[in-house]
């Protein structure tokens, strides 16, 4: 069994280190204990989020990108992160910590491949974004309704089939027709896509994997902040 680790004997720095490892191993119960221990010591919720969960998910994302971790392990890490977030989320709301940004995401009409989209959702949440996941098989109308309802900063679309990826252009064209294209950053992803395709359909960026999606979303949020400020 596991080597006995007594949290109260560790320094806060050691606890953050341990959180990263436990997140990597997808140990939800341990993460919950560590979050509670940290909060009990007077750490701020956003500190626990940033130095523990977000830092940990970044390692997970990078190792997934580099072919060291695979989908099952990332799903498990994301589940542990969710358990930690369940404690932090209400506290973050209370302390009025500012959200990094919000995103509506879903797979496009005709496409039911959702494993990649789910990973992106989890990594985005792990990075502190608020994500509204519309699930699979979404029409332009469904995306737009959700963007308007949640006043989302970002639209994320996912397609794994060459037959469904053209629908992304339909969505973007509809955004244009409605005059709301400029209100939202459009990020697209999925195995058969590439940068040239994203450019051709006038998306803002193509995201090769979940880690890139997080980086790109953060970058665009900075630009958006700059524009808004």
């Amino acid at each position, binding site marked *: 069994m*596991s080597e006995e680790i007594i949290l109260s004997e560790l320094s806060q720095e050691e606890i953050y280190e341990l959180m990263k490892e436990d997140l990597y191993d*997808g140990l939800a119960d341990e993460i919950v204990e560590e979050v509670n221990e940290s909060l009990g010591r007077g750490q701020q919720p956003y500190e626990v989020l940033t130095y523990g969960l977000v830092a940990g998910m970044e390692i997970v994302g990078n190792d997934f990108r580099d072919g060291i971790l*695979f989908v099952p392990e990332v*799903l*498990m890490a994301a589940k542990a992160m969710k358990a930690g977030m369940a404690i932090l989320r209400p506290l973050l709301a209370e302390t009025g910590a500012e959200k990094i940004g919000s995103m509506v995401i879903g797979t496009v009409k005709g496409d039911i491949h959702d494993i990649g989209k789910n990973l992106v959702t989890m990594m985005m949440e792990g990075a502190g974004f608020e994500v509204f996941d519309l699930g699979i098989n979404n029409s332009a109308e469904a995306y737009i309704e959700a963007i308007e309802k949640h006043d989302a900063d970002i639209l994320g679309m996912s397609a794994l089939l060459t037959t469904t990826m053209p629908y992304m252009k339909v969505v973007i064209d509809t955004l244009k027709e409605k005059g709301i294209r400029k209100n939202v950053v459009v990020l697209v992803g999925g195995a058969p896509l590439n940068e040239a395709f994203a450019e051709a359909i006038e998306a803002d960026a193509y995201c090769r994997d979940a880690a890139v999606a997080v980086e790109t979303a953060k970058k665009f949020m900075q630009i958006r902040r700059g524009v808004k400020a």
Partner: protein
Amino acid sequence: MTQSMTSLERTRTVLAGGIPDRVPVDLHNFMMVAEASGAPFPEFFQDGEAMAEGQIKAWREFGHDVLILENGTAALAEACGAQVEYMEGSAPVCHGPAIKSLDDIDKLEVPDPYKVFPLTENLRATRIVAQEIGDKAFIIGRADQGPFSLAAMLLGMEEFLLRLAQADGGRSGRRGGGGDAELAKKLHRLLEFSLAVTTRYAYAQIQAGAHMTSIGESLSGPDVCSPKSYKTFEWSYAKRMVENLKADNIQLAYHICGDATAIVPDMVETGATILELDYKVDMLAVKAATRGRATVLGPVDPSGVLALGAPSDVENAAREAIEILGEGGGLILGPGCALPPKTPAENVHRLIETARKYGVYA
């Protein structure tokens, strides 16, 4: 001179490790066939007679050597009680599990392929195609998904993958990383059940007249799962399936699309007669691993090249495959996965012409 063998002779020679007159060609065209029929896809994929007619028509048009018969990836899952949606313009997909948790495995029953829909319709298709052209073309009646992918659909794909990681244990080793043996046991029970389901259906495909059968296990490949998970939760099941069928002189084709390079040596070790591989694999590594031991079926890109490329792209990809994988036999040329519905006929013709022109053995 170039065409001294029939499709059947040509294919059988390759499978036996010999050198035929030229490289045989297969099509993985069930969606093209649906598109060509003009019928709504949901109707078409539930109608064995229509599927058979469409396949025969396509064979008369293209003259390929090997036919792969299936109606997507969800037939066994549906027969076991999972929710399946028949979509317009695409293959049917599974989107709801058959069991709520791993504690419900005992509620599952191995479906009788002669009684349970849609297996009945798929078998009807195989039977008709085998009767009509089985003396001329080589027919692979797919036994749908293999143990791993079927188990994933029965439990729900994400739930299954998550449990897999849990059973396997952590990676950093800080806390021992032992995994969950109890959970692993339950997963193996579900895999055991799935193995029984797919094996039974495989026999039925052969009884319906198919020359050979096949399973799809893409979910277990390195685009999704680690080679370690593959080895623990898929490999031994595939190997047992191959061995069981071989005992009755039945050959199996083993399909894992995406970049399977890392596990190809393991796939070879299962003893499968054919490995169906995708364009993402490293062809030199695959040739080294399969030479004299298994036949490769593929690896032309079905979407990027066959559906969206120009005929010259098809020719280039096919020639490269013939040169590397076809050297000394061991290759059935074709798409590494399903052809999209709107694949141009011109490109399919070019694929076959390329084999006739450049795939000839001296």
